[in-house]
C-alpha cells in the first residue's frame, strides 16, 4: 500500500521522529496472519453451554403465550425469559427503554423473547424450534412516512425520539438575497456493517457473585454499564474483557450489551459458562444498521455561486427503541450543511420510531447521510447555475475564520481547500470531465448511426476469446455491442473528531500508563483494537515521547477489571482524544523518571534500567490523565450553539464510473481522494482506513440495500446482501494532507469515519455526468438507475 503524505504547512524545524509518522508493523498483525489470534468463537471454555435466541417473526404484536413443545426432550436445556432477569429488564444505553427480552409487547421483527442453552449446540438449535411463541399481531409502522403520519403511535405523542433545530442568520433574508433557489429531496437506505466476525460473547458467574463477560466488542464500559443495570450488580462485580475482534464499524458499539446480557442471563440461571455466537443470518437479521434518512434541502445562491441560504429538513428512521439515535441524529444535523460557509441556515432534524430493529452506530454516525444530501445538492446547484462543480465548491468551502451554523469559529487546521485542490489535480478532474463528455457524445452519435465499432460481420471467427470480465461476454469485439458511458464526479466533506458537543466533557475519559515488573511502559486504556490499528498508534505515540521503539511499549488488554474508563472506541476519537491522554501520560512518565535519575533517558535499555531502579526504590509508577477541555471550546446543549467539535477533518474525492445503459450497471473505474487529517501517526494505517472507508462508501452508493419482507430483513445472507468484492474494488489513489491541530497529539485529528462521508455523492455526480440522469436515492441499484434512465436523460 502506498500513501502519499503531503504536509501543507510543515513546521520549519524538521526533526525526523523515531516512531510517529512511521509505518511500523502492526502490533497484533503477526498473530492474526498466523492464526494465533483467538477470536471469541475460538475460545474453549470447559463446561460451556451454547446459547441460542428465540426471536419474534412479526414486527409488532402482543405476546399471548409461550409454549415449550411437550414432545421435545428438554433435559439439559436451560431456558430463560424476562422473568429471570435479576435487575431491570433493559439493555441500557442512553435510555433504558429497550428490554433485554420482550416481556409482553413486540416492537420489531427478530426481537429476542426467550433464550435457550445446551452443551450440545445442535440440541440448543433444536430447542429454539421447540419454543412456540403465540403472538397477536398488530399493525406495524415500517417507514419514515408512516411514522410521521402516526399510522400507529409507538413513542410519545408523535413517534419522534429526538428533534434538533440549528439556526444561524435570517433564512428569509438569505433567500431574498439569492438569485436562484434550488430544491431537492434525497434518501438513503439501511446499511449493514458486515464486520467479518459476527457478534459473539462468553459469560460466566464469578466466585465472588459477579459476572465475567468476554467477547467481540468496541466499548467494554458500555457493556459493563448495561450488565450492572440488568443484574443489579455494583461496578466491581462486573468485569468485561474484549477478545480479539474481527471488525466493528460501529456495529459492536451497542449490540454487545444485548448479546452480552443474554449470555450473562443464561450463565446466571445455569451457573455454567455460556457462549453465544451469532451466525451470519442471525447477525444481519437482528443487529443494528445505519439509519435510513429522508432529507429535503432548499438552498439560495447568487449567480456567482455564493451560498446565501440553506434550509434543510432531515428525518431519520431510528427503529424500535431509542438506543443511540439521538446522538446519531445530532452528528447528522451538525454536518448537514457540509463544509460550506453560509450566513443563513436552518436545519431541522428528527429521528422517528418504527417497528424495525433499532438502527445504531455505523462509521460516520449520521454524517454520511446528511452529507450525501448536502453534496448531491451542491452538484444540483452547480447544474442549475451552469457552473463547474469544482468552482462552486471553491467559492464556498470553509477557510480559517469561517463560522459554522452553530457559531463555531474555525480557528485552525481547516483543510477543505487543500483536500479539494489536491483531489482535483491528482484526478485530472477538469480535463476528464471534458474528455468523457466528448466521448459520450461521440458514442451516442455512433449508436444512432448504427456504427458500432467492431461489429459488421457475423459469425464466430475461430480463436474468438471469451471475455474475462466478470459480467461475462462472449461475442465479437471488445465492447460486445455494449452501450457504455463514462462520468466523473466530485464531493467534499468534513467530519468532527471526538464526541459531539459536551460529550467529551461528560465522558471525562481517563487513560493511564504504568510500569511492568520488568521495567517497560504499559498502556492502560479501555479502547479496543478492531482492526483499525489503535494499539499500534498508541504504542507509537507513547514510544515517541519516551524515546523508545514502539515494540518496547506494552498494551494491557481492554479489561474493565484492569484499565480505567477511557471511553468508547467510536467517533474518530481514539487517536485524537485517548492518544492525546496517553501522550500526556508518557510525557509525565518521562519527566518522573528523568527527575528520579537526575539525567535525560537515552534509549530503551536505559529506560528499562531506570524504570527497574525506580520500581525497586520507589514502588509502582502509574501516570493517569483525565480529559481536559481546551479552554477556547464551549458548547451550549440547550441552544445547540457553540463548538460542536474541537476540530474537523476534511476529505475530497473524485470518482470515475462507467455506466452500462442496457443494464444500469455502474462500474467504478477509479477513485482519487485527498484527506486532511492533521497528522498521520501511521501513514499506512491511515491510508488503510481511507481505502476501506472509500470502498464501504462505494458499496453504500451502489450495492448495499437491505430488503424487507413483511417487516423482516429478507436478504440476510452474504449471497444477497451485496457488498463489493475485490473484483468490484477500483484502484483508490490516496493522498494524506497534514495541517496539524494544536490540541491533537502530534497534531492528529480523526480519520476513522471521514472517508465514509464522500464516496456516495461523488458516485451520484459521476453517474449524472455520464448519463444526464441524477438519482437522488442510494443505493443507485441497476434497477433504480435503469428506471431513471427510462424516465429520461439517457444520451
Amino acid at each position, binding site marked *: 500500500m502506498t500513501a502519499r503524505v503531503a504536509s501543507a504547512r510543515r513546521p520549519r524545524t524538521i526533526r525526523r521522529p523515531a516512531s510517529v509518522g512511521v509505518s511500523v508493523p502492526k502490533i497484533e498483525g503477526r498473530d492474526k496472519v498466523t492464526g494465533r489470534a483467538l477470536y471469541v468463537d475460538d475460545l474453549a471454555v470447559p463446561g460451556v453451554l451454547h446459547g441460542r435466541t428465540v426471536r419474534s417473526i412479526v414486527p409488532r404484536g402482543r405476546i399471548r403465550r409461550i409454549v415449550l413443545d411437550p414432545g421435545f426432550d428438554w433435559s439439559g436445556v436451560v431456558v430463560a425469559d424476562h422473568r429471570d432477569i435479576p435487575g431491570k429488564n433493559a439493555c441500557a444505553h442512553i435510555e433504558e427503554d429497550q428490554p433485554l427480552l420482550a416481556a409482553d409487547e413486540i416492537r420489531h421483527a427478530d426481537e429476542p423473547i426467550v433464550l435457550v442453552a445446551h452443551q450440545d449446540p445442535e440440541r440448543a438449535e433444536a430447542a429454539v424450534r421447540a419454543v412456540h411463541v403465540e403472538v397477536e399481531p398488530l399493525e406495524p409502522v415500517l417507514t419514515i412516512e408512516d411514522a410521521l403520519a402516526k399510522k400507529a403511535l409507538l413513542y410519545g405523542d408523535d413517534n419522534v425520539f429526538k428533534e434538533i433545530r440549528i439556526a444561524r442568520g435570517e433564512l428569509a433574508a438569505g433567500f431574498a438575497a439569492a438569485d436562484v433557489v434550488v430544491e431537492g429531496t434525497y434518501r438513503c437506505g439501511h446499511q449493514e456493517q458486515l464486520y467479518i466476525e459476527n457478534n459473539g460473547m462468553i459469560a460466566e458467574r464469578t466466585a465472588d457473585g459477579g459476572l465475567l463477560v468476554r467477547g467481540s466488542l468496541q466499548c467494554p464500559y458500555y457493556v459493563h454499564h448495561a450488565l450492572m443495570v440488568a443484574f443489579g450488580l455494583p461496578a466491581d462485580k462486573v468485569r468485561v474483557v474484549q477478545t480479539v475482534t474481527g471488525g466493528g464499524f460501529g456495529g459492536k458499539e451497542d449490540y454487545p450489551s444485548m448479546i452480552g446480557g443474554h449470555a450473562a442471563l443464561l450463565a446466571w440461571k445455569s451457573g455454567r459458562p455460556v457462549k453465544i455466537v451469532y451466525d451470519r443470518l442471525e447477525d444481519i437479521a437482528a443487529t443494528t444498521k445505519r439509519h435510513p434518512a429522508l432529507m429535503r434541502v432548499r438552498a439560495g445562491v447568487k449567480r456567482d455561486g455564493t451560498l446565501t441560504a440553506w434550509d434543510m429538513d432531515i428525518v431519520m428512521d431510528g427503529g424500535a427503541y431509542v438506543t443511540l439515535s439521538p446522538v446519531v441524529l445530532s452528528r447528522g444535523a451538525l454536518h448537514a450543511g457540509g463544509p460550506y460557509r453560509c450566513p443563513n441556515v436552518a436545519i431541522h432534524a428528527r429521528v422517528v420510531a418504527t417497528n424495525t430493529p433499532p438502527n445504531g452506530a455505523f462509521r460516520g454516525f449520521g454524517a454520511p447521510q446528511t452529507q450525501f444530501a448536502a453534496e448531491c445538492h451542491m452538484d444540483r446547484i452547480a447544474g442549475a447555475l451552469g457552473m463547474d462543480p469544482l468552482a462552486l465548491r471553491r467559492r464556498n468551502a470553509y477557510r480559517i475564520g469561517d463560522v459554522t451554523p452553530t457559531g463555531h469559529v474555525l480557528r485552525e487546521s481547516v483543510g477543505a481547500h487543500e483536500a479539494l485542490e489536491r483531489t482535483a489535480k491528482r484526478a485530472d478532474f477538469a480535463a476528464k470531465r471534458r474528455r468523457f463528455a466528448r466521448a459520450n457524445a461521440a458514442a451516442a452519435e455512433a449508436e444512432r448511426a448504427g456504427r458500432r465499432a467492431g461489429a459488421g460481420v457475423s*459469425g*464466430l471467427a475461430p480463436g474468438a476469446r471469451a471475455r474475462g470480465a466478470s459480467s461475462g461476454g*462472449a461475442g465479437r469485439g471488445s465492447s460486445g455491442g*455494449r452501450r457504455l458511458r463514462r462520468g466523473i464526479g466530485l464531493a467534499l466533506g468534513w467530519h468532527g473528531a471526538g464526541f459531539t458537543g459536551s460529550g467529551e466533557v461528560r465522558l471525562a475519559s481517563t487513560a493511564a500508563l504504568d510500569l511492568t515488573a520488568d521495567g517497560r511502559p504499559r498502556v492502560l486504556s479501555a479502547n479496543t483494537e478492531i482492526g483499525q490499528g489503535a494499539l499500534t498508534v498508541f504504542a507509537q505515540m507513547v514510544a515517541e515521547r519516551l524515546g523508545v521503539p514502539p515494540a518496547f511499549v506494552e498494551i494491557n488488554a481492554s479489561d474493565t477489571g484492569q484499565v480505567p474508563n477511557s471511553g468508547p472506541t467510536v467517533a474518530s476519537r481514539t487517536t485524537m482524544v485517548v492518544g492525546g491522554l496517553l501522550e500526556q501520560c508518557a510525557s509525565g512518565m518521562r519527566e518522573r523518571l528523568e527527575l528520579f535519575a537526575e539525567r535525560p533517558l537515552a534509549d530503551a535499555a536505559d529506560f528499562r534500567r531506570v524504570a527497574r531502579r525506580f520500581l525497586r526504590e520507589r514502588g509502582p509508577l502509574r501516570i493517569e490523565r483525565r480529559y481536559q477541555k481546551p479552554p477556547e471550546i464551549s458548547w451550549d446543549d440547550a441552544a445547540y450553539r457553540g463548538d460542536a467539535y474541537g476540530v474537523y477533518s476534511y476529505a475530497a474525492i473524485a470518482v470515475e464510473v462507467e455506466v452500462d445503459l442496457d443494464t444500469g450497471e455502474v462500474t467504478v473505474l477509479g477513485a482519487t481522494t485527498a484527506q486532511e487529517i492533521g497528522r498521520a501517526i501511521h501513514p499506512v494505517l491511515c491510508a488503510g482506513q481511507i481505502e476501506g472507508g472509500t470502498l464501504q462508501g462505494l458499496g453504500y452508493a451502489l450495492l448495499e440495500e437491505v430488503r424487507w419482507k413483511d417487516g423482516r430483513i429478507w436478504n440476510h445472507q452474504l449471497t444477497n446482501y451485496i457488498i463489493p468484492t475485490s473484483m468490484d474494488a477500483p484502484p483508490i489513489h490516496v493522498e494524506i494532507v497534514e495541517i496539524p491541530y494544536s490540541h491533537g497529539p502530534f497534531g492528529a485529528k480523526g480519520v476513522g469515519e471521514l472517508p465514509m462521508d464522500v464516496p456516495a455523492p461523488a458516485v451520484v455526480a459521476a453517474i449524472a455526468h455520464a448519463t444526464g440522469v441524477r438519482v437522488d436515492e442510494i443505493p443507485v441499484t441497476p434497477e433504480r438507475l435503469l428506471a431513471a434512465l427510462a424516465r429520461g436523460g439517457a444520451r
Partner: protein
Amino acid sequence: MRSALSTLEVATPRDLAHALRLLHDSLATERLVPLAGGTDLLVYLNAGQQVGRRFLNLWGLRELRGIREARGGVTLGALTTFTMIREHPLVRRCLPALAAAAAVIGAWQVQNRATIAGNIANGSPAGDSLPVLLAHEAVVHARSMRGGRDIPFGTLYRGYRDLVLEPDELITAVTVPFPPARAFPFFRKVGTRRAQSISKVVLCGLVRVARGGEVDLARVALGSVAPVTLRARRAERALLGARPSATATAAARAALMEDIAPIDDIRSDAAYRRAVAGNVLEQFLRAADARFTMG
C-alpha cells in the same frame, strides 16, 4: 451451521457401478442425495434447509471427471469443474460461450469445486451454465443400474427445480455440440456485482445470417426470467427468415416479452428483468451484426 451435522451420513463409493448400487439400494429406506462439489448443498445445510440426511459422495469418482472431444462437440464428465471448463483450450476456442459462463460462476474458489452436473441437477433457473447448454442443444447422459439414457437438455426440466431424472439415476456426463458453422455465439450474465454473484438475467444466443442475407439460425436461451431456464421460441421465430434490421430487432424483442415470465424476488424485480432481457437481446443482435440497429 444450522443443520445438525452429527446426524448426517456420507457414503463414499469405490466406482460408478458401486455408486449406482448404493443409490439404488438406498431407495428402500432413505435416499442418498448425490454430493458432488457441495457448493450448493453445503449452503443449504448451513442455512438449516432440509436437503436430506444421507449423502452419496461422488467427488472421488475419476470416471466422471474430465473433458473429451466428441464428434462435433465435447463431452464433459459430470464432475468437471468450472475451472477445468474455463481453462480448457478446446472449450475456449470452440465453445466460447461455455468458457465465458464458467469464468463468471462464483469466483475462483467456487469454480474449483463447482461441477457442471451439480449446476444442472441443482436446477436453479439462475444457473449460469444452463442457458449455454440449452442454446447449444446439449444432451445429458444419465445412468442407473437399469442402464443409461440420453436426455436432450431442452426436455430436462419439468418445472421449477424439477428434473425428469429418476431417483436411482445419476448424471454421468453432458455432451455439448459446437455451434453450427458461422453462427455467432454470445453470452451475457447480468448479476448483482462483478464476482460471487447470482444472475438477475443471463442470456446465451447463437445467430447466423445466411449468404442470402436472412437469418437462418437463431437460438436464444435465458435464465432467471422464468421458473426454468428457457428457449425464447417466439423471439427465435421472429428472427428466423428476417433480414437483420432495427425492425427485426424490435420484433424479436416484442416476441421475447411473450416468452419470458420474470418475477420480483430477493435479487431484482420483474420490470428490471424484462427491460434487461430485451436490452441484452438487442446487445446480442447488434454485436452479431450491425445491421440489426439500422433502418
